């Protein structure tokens, strides 16, 4: 594979995405909501509203905390109601929600890169270059996966700063991230980024427009929402081990999807669709 060509394809794809508002606006707005607006709301709320006024809601939260594994419940020991609320919402409730970011961004860029290229009729000239099929494929993977991971990591960093800064009056120390966030950030997030891209590759062979591909890959968000529901109901908790195990499972699925994707991403197949 030719790394110079891979880099050129990735840079070109990202330049094109930057010109497509439908692609980049959600990639900017959603991280701002997740990394800034939501943690600010969840950390400032208990500091602004007296606990007595939301006693009912806090009681429900305590029931949810009681469903968490015993080891995890240790985090809440010796914590006041307000601190418990902040820990539960920012460290547990929002954790799986963050996976929407890499999934969404990689599938948006992937849809623009794989389907958009065909839709804009630019694929043919690309196929007439000396690049091998694998180099072209790798370039498009890099274009969609690497920025998705970087965007997620930047969002995590902002989130960590916002959570700790906004909850400083309650804790008086840096308490976040908890241990389970490390495999979430560095193991599960890259795997989920690749999942969004590899699913797009498969979908791209069956749809004709960027919007179709975007909408179909958007349905993958349901998987993330299932994690949120699982976490809320106590059925699934994203701890260190479970996050690592889930990440491993997603990596295996990624490998299978990419294996199939490489098979479909061949000049002879692609030219027939032009």
């Amino acid at each position, binding site marked *: 594979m*030719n790394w*110079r*060509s891979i880099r*050129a*394809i990735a840079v*070109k794809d990202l*330049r*094109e995405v930057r*010109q*497509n508002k439908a692609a980049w606006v959600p990639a900017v707005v959603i991280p701002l909501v997740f990394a800034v607006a939501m943690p600010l709301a969840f950390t400032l709320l208990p500091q602004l509203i007296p606990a007595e006024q939301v006693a009912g809601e806090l009681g429900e939260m305590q029931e949810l905390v009681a469903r968490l594994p015993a080891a995890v419940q240790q985090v809440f020991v010796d914590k006041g109601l307000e601190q418990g609320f902040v820990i539960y919402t920012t460290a547990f409730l929002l954790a799986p929600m963050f996976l929407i970011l890499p999934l969404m961004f990689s599938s948006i860029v992937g849809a623009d890169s794989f389907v958009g290229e065909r839709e*804009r*009729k*630019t*694929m*043919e*000239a*690309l*196929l*007439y*270059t*000396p*690049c*091998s099929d694998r180099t072209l494929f790798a370039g498009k993977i890099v274009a969609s996966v690497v920025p998705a991971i970087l965007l997620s990591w930047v969002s995590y960093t902002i989130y960590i700063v916002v959570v700790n800064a906004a909850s400083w009056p309650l804790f008086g120390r840096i308490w976040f991230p908890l241990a389970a966030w490390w495999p979430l950030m560095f193991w599960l997030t890259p795997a989920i980024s690749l999942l969004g891209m590899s699913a797009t590759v498969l979908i791209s062979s069956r749809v004709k427009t960027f919007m179709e591909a975007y909408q179909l890959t958007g349905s993958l968000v349901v998987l993330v929402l299932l994690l949120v529901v699982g976490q809320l109901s106590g059925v699934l908790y994203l701890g260190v081990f479970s996050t690592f195990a889930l990440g491993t499972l997603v990596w295996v699925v990624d490998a299978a999807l990419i294996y199939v994707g490489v098979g479909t991403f061949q*000049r*002879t197949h692609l*030219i*027939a669709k032009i």
Partner: protein
Amino acid sequence: MGATVDAPQDSVIDVSNLHRTFGAIRAVDGLTFDIRPGEVFGLLGPNGAGKTTTVRLLNGILPPSGGFVRVLGMDPAQQGGQVRRKTGVLTENPTLYERLSARQNLTFYGTLSEIPEATLGGRVEEMLGFFGLEGRAGDRVETYSKGMKQRLALARALLHQPPLLFLDEPTSGLDPEAAQQVNALIEFLSHKGQTIVLCTHNLTEAERLCDRVAVMNAGRCLALGNPADISRRLWPGTWLDVVFWQAPSPAQLELARNFPAVEQVDLGPELLSVRLQSKEAIPTFVRQLVEAGASILSVNPRSHSLEEVYFAIQNNRQDGEA
């Protein structure tokens, strides 16, 4: 594929009995031709004749279903990447990245064509200048006129200085002025000795630009050669129109009819049309008429335009099928 057949050393492209099928459809059906260095070779035919499929086969984008192909001594099906390093292709649609600038487009394709990083920038600027795009090089391509886009696509095809250039309908959809600009560029390249394969259904363009043509239909090559040769095969002999100042006498007409090389005579009021066996017989024929006292105003050997040749071939094919 018949790998035992060797390409002639002086051929840039050598194709023998090339086939490509898509299910039951024969897109290319037994094509045989060769292209020599510095030649402008036209692939002529209606839409669906198999011209674009042939270009794809020659560049290793599609594998053939059968037959022998060598491009610059290489087998495109096995050495596609190496072949494409030495070919430039102008596709039927410009297929440019409209959201990027001309400079970004050329830099991208130059990188993929493996132009060394140290020389790429200079080469891009050189091409932008040559094609008159330097003033708008930083603008997004979507703001360009069709003619500018086609010039940029041509610049892209030539960026890596390929010894072999494929032009698929280079003036399709262009206004006459833009088409003239593109044709002038092709003529310039041809005079520089660039080998060009020109796919077109614009017969005037082909007649002006091509040294030899292959007339295609339904994937088959119906005729191959330079237009004059094909014309001679279609219409053997040479038709000569002789216009008289004064109507020819019966003796002069008799002389014309009995001239040894004359095969056919048509007589109009002041026009005598004769079919001679060859062009070489014309001077002797005219001299004998003059010596017999004929008052001749003009003598015109009749030639057939490529358009006439093309339609005669296509009509022959239809008659054959009927």
